[in-house]
């Protein structure tokens, strides 16, 4: 499947909607490479550079979001950090820490701060900056770590505090996904009228069942639909093109549907009782397997409404 690029920048701000005070805006060309969310998480907030090998930290609890972003052709960590730092300060946050490489404590700093792993976030021990800030009234804190390596820039963002809806400064979320397949209303009506929707924005590694990091607008729409209709059930159905044997293709397609199911449960809290995952292999094509474009279209995961009332 095609790897869907997720664009930050303006899109995140435009789609944030009136309910949010502000959404942190990333420069154009920024691509989210990974995200982890914990509704009830904790994070060791760095309060200063390492002293005698130890970074002073304070453990904070709340909804935790960690995101890794990659930016093309960046050589300067300050150019990465400055626009983000500016937005955070403008939102009324108080800086706790603002340091660079050895000023942060070098290796000791890396070991003290929890970061999403490489290759989603590459940290260069010899060239990085860190910035932490909090808004005490809201019990909200942000930690930015920026680095660059092999011609690309990397930004790591950790946000801890109240749930996103109540945040003074929220991070780019599901709405930042590029080219959502349809508006939520269209999604609901298509699912109910036609009985199925192709989750066209999902991306998988070639030959792998692992779902890309997302976020995916189609899964957000599906999660919202299932939350609004707790009595309804759906099946996620994986499909492949006709390259290779039937049995491995059925297995692969079922595993891909299973990855989508797990993502709905872990990311959106959708109850398992509303979900099933199945695989059809190449037995239900939507296009010819004779052309690359047709095979691409055939590699997909659909959601079908299985409830009869």
């Amino acid at each position, binding site marked *: 499947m095609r790897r869907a690029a997720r664009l930050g920048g303006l899109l995140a701000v435009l789609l944030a909607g009136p309910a949010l005070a502000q959404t942190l805006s990333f420069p154009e060309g920024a691509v989210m490479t990974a995200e982890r969310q914990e509704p009830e998480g904790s994070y060791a907030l760095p309060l200063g550079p390492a002293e005698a090998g130890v970074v002073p930290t304070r453990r904070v609890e709340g909804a935790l979001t960690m995101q890794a972003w990659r930016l093309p052709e960046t050589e300067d960590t300050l150019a990465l950090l400055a626009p983000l730092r500016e937005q955070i300060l403008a939102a009324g946050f108080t800086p706790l820490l603002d340091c660079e490489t050895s000023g942060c404590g070098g*290796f*000791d700093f890396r070991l003290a701060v929890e970061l999403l792993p*490489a290759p989603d976030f590459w940290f*260069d021990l010899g060239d990085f900056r860190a910035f932490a800030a909090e808004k005490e009234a809201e019990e909200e804190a942000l930690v930015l770590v920026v*680095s660059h390596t092999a011609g690309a820039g990397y930004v790591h963002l950790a946000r801890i505090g109240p749930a996103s809806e109540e945040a003074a400064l929220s991070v780019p979320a599901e709405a930042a996904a590029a080219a959502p397949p349809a508006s939520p209303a269209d999604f609901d009506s298509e699912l109910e009228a036609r009985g199925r929707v192709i989750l066209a924005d999902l991306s998988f*590694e070639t030959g792998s069942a692992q779902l890309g990091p997302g976020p995916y607008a189609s899964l957000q729409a599906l999660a919202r639909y299932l939350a609004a209709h707790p009595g309804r059930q759906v099946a996620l159905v994986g499909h*492949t093109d006709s*390259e290779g044997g039937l049995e491995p*293709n059925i297995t692969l397609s079922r595993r891909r549907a299973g990855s989508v199911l797990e993502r709905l449960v872990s990311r959106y809290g959708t109850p398992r009782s509303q979900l099933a995952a199945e695989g059809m292999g190449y037995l239900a094509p939507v296009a010819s397997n004779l052309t690359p474009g047709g095979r691409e279209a055939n590699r997909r995961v659909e959601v079908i409404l299985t409830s009869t009332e």
Partner: protein
Amino acid sequence: MKGAAPPAAEQIYAAIDATWPPAAMARLGGWTIREGRGGGSRVSAATWEGPGPAEESLAGAEDAMRALGQTPLVMVRAGQEALDRALEASGWRVKDPVVTYAGPASALPAPGLEVAEAWPPGPEARAVWAEGGIGPERIAVMDRAAGPKVALGMGGGVAYVALHDGLAMLHALEVLASARRRGLGRALMGAAGAWAARQGAGQLVLLVTRANAGANALYAGLGMAQTGGYHYRELAP
């Protein structure tokens, strides 16, 4: 679906880091530094990704590894002759040349014996591994792999297989000394191939030290091809 073409060296290196992951990886200029936490050479060795000559930043990489409490160790990959010479000149000595093998997953012979598939590994599998020197630090390495993975086990033999980007990679194949010469290794390889094929992987890949004659004979005898290799260089304390 991935075809039957043997994987490129870069694919194998990526699969090593994904299926046998270090506790953490970081860059230091052109170096990738790995934090192994006692998980062995594969998760602790630094690699040179370039560009340019490695010598200038070698001291920094050494310091970074020492800061992690690790003995400075570099994995020298195929084609890195200049790096190899630079390390040699600075007193780094060769350790454990490794050969990589690959073969179509579906071409391995059916196990013929019943092989259990499980994740996480059960107590019997852990006991066999422990006997062969694969302790909790290496089980922690397997735990870290994010993709599909499995522990294959049968009376006195065990192996771990994990998937990355269409490649299945086998690590930690261990047969108790008392259970050798009964075809367990061969059966485990067959089970690994069958598991990999069911996951949609085209190729099964593995790494073995050149000095391990028994294992090299097993893999060659199964029709797997040597696709390349690497060796380590260590700066003795």
